[in-house]
């Protein structure tokens, strides 16, 4: 059969039911194969939309997202989603077309060095040199994308090779001598960690996106319950521990809660689980958690002690390690009363410094109020919430509670505006039984607005709520706080008319600006079938607080 038909067979063998993509000259053979393949192909409106939709699909389902693009501009258009997936450890396989082998290196029509351009932003990449290697490469790509620390893998296929006839034999196993992720943590280290926990008086569990990748929320919760430990999560870890909860401190970091950041600051033992000590967490590194010893559980050995030296490193899969850690900890029968003083301290911070904002006295909608209203309108968060990047993202992280994993989809490491809409589409396709809601900004939404066409054409009922402040709000905030309020190019004007735009795409559009009926109005909008765009006018100049200024220490939180 043709190599492209073999690709379809491999996709089916990998259990792929839907892919996202966009055709062009160099991948015409692949698109011909889609005609009879029996694989659902979602035609996005821009390859970046395809890449982010595949990410949303992967984040919501835990399966590998798949995106197809043609050579040259098609391939360069997926550079942002690939980088995004690399930063947030999202399992993706990207197939790019390439010019015919005889044209390689000649600046042929739509030739770009995709392999070279993407090398630093993928977990691994393949450039096909012989058509017979295609089936094996496809399976290797899926294996690499989904195992270990997940990430994007790219396969670049010259057009002529994709058309070649090959003798297709199903591939049963992959053999990658240089790639063997460690899964089981070292037993001695796990026992040592249990002992350290049993002797800690001010412990904190600091969980990140790795807990979600590992499907280890239950084990994390179990560990927290076994020792009555306080838990905080990174932006990427939200939902790994059910919120709200007595043991839940809220998110930590730059826009985290005071309780979480102060607890890190005073902790004597911090257990980092699938979290990578990003600078949005540590702030000023030299003053980060100065009293703490660190247990660091991560599947990627290079993360351990990269930014913060670990005292008890444990390399492996969080799910397996946590399950054993709980057992070891329980066996020590530690005295739970030792944490009484610590909990009193935490309670003090929680009651003194809850998340708060000055609500409006009239019908004006404060952005934080919008998030709370959306939470209510979704029956206390019964949805997958995607977001874009900016203030609205931070307020969502603060005021929306995530009861379980894979219910919060956003771009953290790269902070990619325009991620939201396609990701919400991908999530809706991955989990058709759960409402897919997008909370976006008026700036971010315009960066991949064209995907409304995809949502309409493929009948994806994504509900887009725009927190419309008429500003690139997060940048405006920084200009206000750190650049003497000299606003430079952050005012967006009141374009477009969102309701009309929604209607132009065949979606339902509605404008909301009255706080008093907001929850009900949102409910109505969310219940409207098909894609919906809700333009909610909010207070224009509101700042996201609390905040640790960049490079400052947790103790110096403001607002």
């Amino acid at each position, binding site marked *: 059969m043709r190599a492209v038909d073999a690709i379809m067979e491999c996709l089916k063998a990998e259990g792929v039911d839907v892919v996202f993509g966009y055709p062009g000259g160099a991948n015409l053979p692949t698109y011909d194969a889609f005609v009879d393949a029996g694989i659902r192909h979602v035609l996005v409106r821009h390859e970046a939309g395809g890449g982010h939709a595949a990410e949303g699909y992967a984040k919501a389902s835990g399966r590998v997202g798949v995106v197809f693009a043609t050579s040259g501009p098609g391939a360069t258009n997926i550079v942002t989603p690939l980088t995004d997936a690399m930063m947030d450890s999202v399992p993706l396989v990207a197939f790019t077309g390439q010019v015919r082998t005889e044209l390689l290196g000649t600046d042929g029509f739509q030739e770009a060095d995709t*392999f070279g351009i993407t090398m630093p932003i993928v977990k691994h990449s393949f450039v096909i*040199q012989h058509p017979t290697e295609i089936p094996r490469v496809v399976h290797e790509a899926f294996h690499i994308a989904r195992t270990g620390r997940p990430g994007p893998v790219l396969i670049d296929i010259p057009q002529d090779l994709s058309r070649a006839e090959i003798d297709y034999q199903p591939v049963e196993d992959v053999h990658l001598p*240089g790639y063997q992720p460690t899964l089981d943590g070292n037993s001695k280290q796990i026992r040592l960690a249990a002992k350290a926990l*049993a002797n800690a008086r001010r412990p904190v569990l600091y969980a990140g996106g790795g807990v979600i990748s590992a499907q280890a929320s239950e084990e994390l919760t179990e560990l927290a319950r076994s020792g009555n430990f306080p838990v905080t999560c990174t932006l990427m870890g939200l939902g790994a521990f059910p919120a709200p909860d007595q043991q839940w401190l809220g998110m930590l970091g730059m826009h985290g809660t005071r309780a979480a950041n102060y607890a890190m600051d005073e902790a004597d033992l911090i257990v980092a689980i699938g979290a990578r000590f990003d600078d949005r967490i540590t702030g000023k590194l030299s003053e980060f958690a100065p009293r703490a010893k660190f247990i660091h559980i991560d599947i990627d050995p*290079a993360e351990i002690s990269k930014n913060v*030296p670990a005292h008890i490193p444990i390399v492996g899969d969080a799910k397996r390690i946590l399950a054993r850690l709980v057992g070891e900890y329980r066996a020590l029968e530690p005295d739970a009363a030792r944490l009484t003083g610590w909990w009193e301290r935490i309670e003090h911070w929680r009651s003194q410094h809850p998340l708060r904002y000055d609500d409006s006295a009239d019908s004006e909608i404060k952005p934080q109020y919008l998030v709370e209203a959306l939470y209510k309108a979704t029956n206390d968060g019964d949805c997958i919430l995607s977001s874009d990047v900016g203030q609205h993202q931070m307020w969502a992280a603060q005021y929306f509670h995530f009861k379980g994993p894979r219910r919060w989809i956003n771009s953290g490491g790269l902070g990619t505006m325009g991620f939201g809409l396609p990701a919400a589409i991908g999530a809706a396709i991955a989990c058709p039984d759960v409402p897919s809601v997008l909370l976006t900004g008026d700036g971010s939404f315009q960066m991949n607005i064209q995907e409304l066409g995809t949502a309409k054409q493929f009948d994806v009922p994504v509900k887009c709520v725009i927190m419309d402040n008429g500003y690139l709000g997060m940048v405006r905030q920084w200009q206000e706080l750190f650049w003497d309020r000299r606003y430079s190019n952050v005012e967006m004007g009141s374009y477009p008319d969102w309701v009309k735009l929604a209607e132009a795409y065949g979606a339902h559009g509605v404008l909301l600006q009255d706080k008093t009926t907001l929850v009900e109005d949102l409910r109505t909008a969310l219940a409207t079938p098909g894609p919906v765009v809700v333009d909610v006018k909010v207070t224009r100049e509101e700042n996201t607080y609390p905040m640790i200024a960049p490079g400052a220490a947790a103790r110096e939180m403001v607002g």
Partner: protein
Amino acid sequence: MGEPGTKEVLSLEELEASVGLRTGRKHILSILVENKPGVLTRIAGLFARRGFNIDTLAVGPTDDPTLSRITLTLDGAMHPIDQVTKQLHKLVNVIKIRDLEPTETVARELALFKVSADGSTRAEVMQMVEIFRGKIIDVSKRSVIIEVTGSFDKIEAFERMVRPFGLIEMARTGEIAISRGRGET
């Protein structure tokens, strides 16, 4: 420190972090890689991206035609070596990395020196070559080309010695290395 597995109390004070070590010495990494497209670019790119400096780099075939060996040296005063090796290990085409112990390693480099040598200095230059057990491999009226093999230090020493005669140019391969004893590097 409280043994893991016993109920003996462990004091958190006793826990020590051992990482990010800057050893302060030169390191020779011997890296076995698959002969796949772009493997050298991946390694070079990784070093550039993460701000690691390569001092020398040598690439060549091994006894297995599907594998190549990259020997690179870097300064352990500038970089946390464990972070360098861990990042390298993440490359799928990297099979094995050895951070070679200087005392258990034989390392050699080949260097070619073009040195001016006319009638008056030629004898002196040749004497130097003899002492360093080098070879003169080309002679012209006013210069000679010398081949020297040896450790990094020996090459450096030879360079210092011939420079006063007029070092016209020099080419060095960078060290390649192999571990002592029966075991594979």
